[in-house]
């Protein structure tokens, strides 16, 4: 079992590292990640959301629906814990 896990882990790592070979260097400002979608958040956050903290404006506004989902996740987890841990009342 351990050997199998080790093989799987090494394989997974190999694939992941293989992927990094074509990645832009860390900190490179010319990556697609920094150039395609995100510049708008930086440059227009003030006029569109009036929030200087860009993370906040994205979190609460541009991608606010994700945050609703996030809240739902917490709610689910809470309900899940109650459901799981609530003990049966003794009759």
């Amino acid at each position, binding site marked *: 079992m351990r050997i199998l896990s080790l093989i799987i882990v090494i394989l997974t790592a190999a*694939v992941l590292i293989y*992927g*990094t070979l074509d990645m832009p260097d860390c900190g490179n400002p010319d990556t*697609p990640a*920094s150039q395609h979608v995100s510049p708008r958040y930086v440059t227009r956050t003030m006029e569109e959301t009036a929030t200087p903290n860009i993370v906040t404006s994205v979190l609460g506004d541009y991608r606010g*629906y994700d945050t609703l989902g996030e809240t*739902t996740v917490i709610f689910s987890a809470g309900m899940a814990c109650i*459901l799981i841990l609530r003990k049966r009342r003794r009759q």
Partner: protein
Amino acid sequence: MIDQAPILVVIFPLIFAVVTPLLGWWKKDLCYPWVILALSLSSVCSIITLKEVLGNGVIHYHLGGWEPPWGIEYVIDHLNSFILVLVASISLLVAISSKRLVEEENPDKVVYFYTLFLLQVTGFLGIVATGDLFNLYVFLEIASLAGYALIAVGEEHAPFATFRYLVMGTIGACFYLLGVGYLYMATGSLNMADVAQILPDIYSSKVVMVAFIFLLVGVAIKMALFPLHAWLPDAYTYAPSATSALVAPLMTKVSVYVMIRIIYTVFKPYYSIEILPVNLILGWLAVIAILYGVIMALRQVDIKRMFCYILIAEIGYMVGGVGLANRLGVTGAILHIMNDALMITGLFLVAGAVVYKLGGHNINQLRDAFKKMPFSMAAFAVVGLSLIGVPPTCGFFSKWYLILGAIEAENWIFIVALLLSSAINAILFFKIVEIAYYGKASHAHNGDSHGGNTIDEAPVSILIPLGVVALAIILAGIFSGKIVSGILQFAVPPNL
């Protein structure tokens, strides 16, 4: 109202879920009608959405008014509007059937059970509706978390099975998230349509390839595709009856949907088939999954576990259809998403009825079940015939498309696997039917059936959904031509 229908499909269960604990705190009995109401509204909205899509084409719903790719959008096309209707209506049916089951199995947890039930459905619907890769992850986790909790409150060994499922599920979700990360790195976008537009220019990138692999592996874990299926039988066997009837048909189908989206929408067939031979790998996995599933099912003496292995085999059908990579095969796969959702719901509803009435899910407890529960067993027979693929039940028609697709793709081994699984399914169901039909061999001999075995049917709340499912299986079969020409032919990725 009609403009907002796409989002309301998802939001109704969510809002109702938030209110459920409060309502339950006030009056416990209100939870059940409340859930039914929520899911009915959601189903109605999903049907409105489907009609809209059929009438006016693809709906783009921008959440918060932000245009993509900056904001999150819902993209409802023929494929996912169809699956939305399916998910919403099947969860409604399961919800209807759940009343007595939940009261019996988790009497003091009804309120929280129903809350999570709704959250689970929210998760499924969110996954299906969204057009954003990360948003999909969030809803995947909602569905998963609710699923873990719902399964954990099952029978004796449920908690440990849940733990294993949780570990596997988390690995799957993490792989998916990693895939999204790699993809984001390569494209800078999270919107599926946007990513799809950018990708063709960078198909040669290793990042994209790894992203693709991880997205698929992550989804494959969630759908329990063959080598990654190990968590499924335990988890769904020990789960409470209402949970397994909800999760077993839907979680896997939703994952198959996501797989179709990734392979054919985010990536294009050119990439998934010409550059990487995904179709070959999926084809082989499907064949193994089908054969493994049915053979394992044959060995089980526990009907719920048997159904779980059947489910694993059925996943093979759909994945195999996706892997055929031609219009017929993918049509078959999508049609089978519907048919299989109906059949698996039927199976687990029967399992629920059996557990409720006969007190267990060992195959021997079914003795004389035809006498005691004629309606449940009649519905079971319909489901069984459909799984075997006897016309006019719907199972026949998806097989029909799949086999035609396989002939076109010249994938003979898949045809053999399909036919072989039909034959083994026949043996399998026959085994159950025989036990339920003959009962104890000793007293069936002397033609008198007047004493002893009186009808002792499952409660109406289970029988009605079961009847609807059985009817739907037949109708879906008879009208499968209409479904395909009316909806599915637009749902198949256009560039196949």
